């Protein structure tokens, strides 16, 4: 990898200080650095100043009240994976956190950083000379998407593991700027454009995530397909929250990652409420997923496989959760 470009470094102790620093053009937030630092070393970004959010104690809290969670954006993935409250209320979140990269990444990487991680593509996560030799690409410095040269947008894939779980559980995000905070449904943080997948304004950061209290009896899980059993990003990742009452589905939420330029909550699952979990239902679920995922050739694995495996993972997970 190349050397880091030069930048100024600040480590504020409060959120207000951080927001004031981030309001200056050319400033960029960094937390664990596991996503940003490799990109900086590949010459992908050249910020004038990095604002390290790791010194802000207020972002480092996990709170739980009657099953509702308030999670600071600075909480590390290692803590999410180990926290007893999360294991009880939303085990899929702990599972997803545990499935990210390796242990040394997880003790640095944060919730906020994972939610905001950059989209990935074989034509993008490369060294500067590699990208230059290929005429750059639509996501950065170029005008053609090598994945879909006829298209008008970037098809880099979003690969965060936590977002699908939080989307399935109906989470909201609190974002902060120098002007104040706002609270939005987590889904509103994302758009289907690999080159601009976050809707955050310049200088705006995710400060906290709120997860509503679960319906009694809710089960949840997360599964991802990847080439190796560890470290790799998901080729497709599926989160499911499920409530089964008297043999029929009372609640079903499905979140997907790795297949599109944004993580998303599967639309139309309310149509399954009242039905038993059987082969017919799982076949309909698979069909619904096939319609809504759109993997492109942004990984070395065929997009056809990623489309298939997304629905297979969802079928297995729903069957498993329904069986208890």
């Amino acid at each position, binding site marked *: *990898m190349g050397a880091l470009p030069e*930048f*100024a*470094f600040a480590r504020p102790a409060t959120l207000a200080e951080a927001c004031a620093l981030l309001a200056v053009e050319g400033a960029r937030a960094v937390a664990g650095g596991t996503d940003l630092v490799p990109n900086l070393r590949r010459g992908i970004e050249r910020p004038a100043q990095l604002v390290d959010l790791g010194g802000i104690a207020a972002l480092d809290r996990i709170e739980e009240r009657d099953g509702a969670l308030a999670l600071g954006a600075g909480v590390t993935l290692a803590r999410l994976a180990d926290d007893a409250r999360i294991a009880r209320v939303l085990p899929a979140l702990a599972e997803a956190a545990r499935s990210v990269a390796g242990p040394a990444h997880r003790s640095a990487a944060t919730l906020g950083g994972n939610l905001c991680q950059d989209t990935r593509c074989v034509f993008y996560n490369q060294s500067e000379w590699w990208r230059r030799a290929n005429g750059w690409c639509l996501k950065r410095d170029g005008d053609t998407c090598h994945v879909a040269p006829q298209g008008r947008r970037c098809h880099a894939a979003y690969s965060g593991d936590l977002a699908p779980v939080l989307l399935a559980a109906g989470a909201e995000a609190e974002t902060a700027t120098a002007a104040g905070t706002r609270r939005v449904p987590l889904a509103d943080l994302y758009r289907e454009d690999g080159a601009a997948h976050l809707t955050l304004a310049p200088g705006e950061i995710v400060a906290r995530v709120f997860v509503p209290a679960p319906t009694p009896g809710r089960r949840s899980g997360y599964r991802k397909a990847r080439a190796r059993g560890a470290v790799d990003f998901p080729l497709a990742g599926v989160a499911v929250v499920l409530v089964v009452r008297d043999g029929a589905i009372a609640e079903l939420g499905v979140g997907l990652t790795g297949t599109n330029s944004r993580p998303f909550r599967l639309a139309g699952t309310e149509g399954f409420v009242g039905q038993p979990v059987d082969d017919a239902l799982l076949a309909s679920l698979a069909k619904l997923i096939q319609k809504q995922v759109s993997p492109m050739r942004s990984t070395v694995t065929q997009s056809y496989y990623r489309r298939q495996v997304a629905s297979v993972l969802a079928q297995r997970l729903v069957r498993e959760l329904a069986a208890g």
Partner: protein
Amino acid sequence: MPKRLLTLAVNGRRHEIAADGHALLVDVLRDALGLTGTKQGCDGGECGACTVLVDGAPRLACLTLAASVEGRAIETIEGLARSGRMSALQQAFHERLGTQCGFCTPGMIMAAEALLRRTPHPDEAEIREALAGNLCRCTGYVKIIESVRAAAEARP
């Protein structure tokens, strides 16, 4: 870009270093402090050779900005031996042939050290998970896992 004075606590000793704001921990350890036991492998967070401990947790020094770990307890492979005697893990890697070319070894041992402090008697699955981010191109991993298990068994 002006340098800044960094105070880093490495292996129980305080060091004051004039470093760039964009200095990486791996470069400060190796070049400024001469602690070359921490290896620079892939240099992009993929191989684990540069694993060190920060407040007891494993971290990749090649992805860590030195200025972000000021005031934290940093430990490298050089900090494990006591009065010239190898630590239990180092001894086990030596005796069980957990080391071949040795390049991944400091990272392997620091990752395993973090595991054994948290989980003194891990099962094989826990050892494998703790070392999942560390690549070795010589051993095929079997001897490494045996070494960690031997060190754990030697513990009271």
